[in-house]
């Protein structure tokens, strides 16, 4: 299990290939499910978002995501999980987050991957500030109730 928070642009497919080669025993996992979140150039009905700055809480971010991955590995029969999340300046079409999960059976991998990305979106301390045509804008998060509802979804 590995969690990385970094400023540098990364290639999610290269990351998954390398992590798998280095960490997964050969011939033991039956399925892997990968989620890649990518920056769009539109959001909340606004077009032409040219850039984004992703703020975070160094230390807590890593700690929080690691615990979520541990929870997922305890809850489902998964073999490994790897998360990479960027911070700092991000441009449209660049990957923001990678969540990769390997398991013996596919249903477990889907459930665990979805659980990790849902928690990460609604609980991990990251904040997006978009460069919109009319200026900089902090994206509004959901309230606690909406968040709880979505984590359950």
């Amino acid at each position, binding site marked *: 299990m590995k969690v990385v928070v970094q400023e540098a642009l990364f290639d999610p497919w290269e990351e998954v290939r390398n992590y798998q080669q280095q960490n997964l025993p050969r011939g033991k996992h039956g399925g892997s499910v990968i989620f890649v979140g990518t920056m769009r150039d539109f959001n909340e009905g606004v077009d032409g978002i040219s850039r984004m700055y992703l703020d975070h809480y160094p230390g*807590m971010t890593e700690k929080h995501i690691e615990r979520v991955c541990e929870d997922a590995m305890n809850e489902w029969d998964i073999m490994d999980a790897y998360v990479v999340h960027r911070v700092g300046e991000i441009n449209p079409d660049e990957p923001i987050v990678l969540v990769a999960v390997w398991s013996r059976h596919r249903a477990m991998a889907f459930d665990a991957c979805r659980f990790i990305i849902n928690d990460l*979106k609604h609980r*991990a*301390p990251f904040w*997006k500030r978009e460069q919109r045509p009319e200026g900089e804008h902090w994206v*509004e998060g959901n309230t606690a109730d909406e*968040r709880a509802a979505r984590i359950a979804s």
Partner: protein
Amino acid sequence: MKVSVKYFANMRDRMGRADETVELDEGATVASLWAKVSDEPMPENTLIAVNMEYTNTEEALKDGDEVAFFPPVTGG
């Protein structure tokens, strides 16, 4: 006792600072810390972490604690 305080995202903009060290009386809670750092009520939906764990305004603080105030998160 002393605690270190951090502000993130628009909470940092609102407070005009990213972090500070605050001197508190023994038995102080997160709520009493907030009253000391701001004249305004805490914005609705503010999230609070003490030593990087989510908590609420009732939590009693100890010397050396790290307290963070921030808005709902928007990662991923």
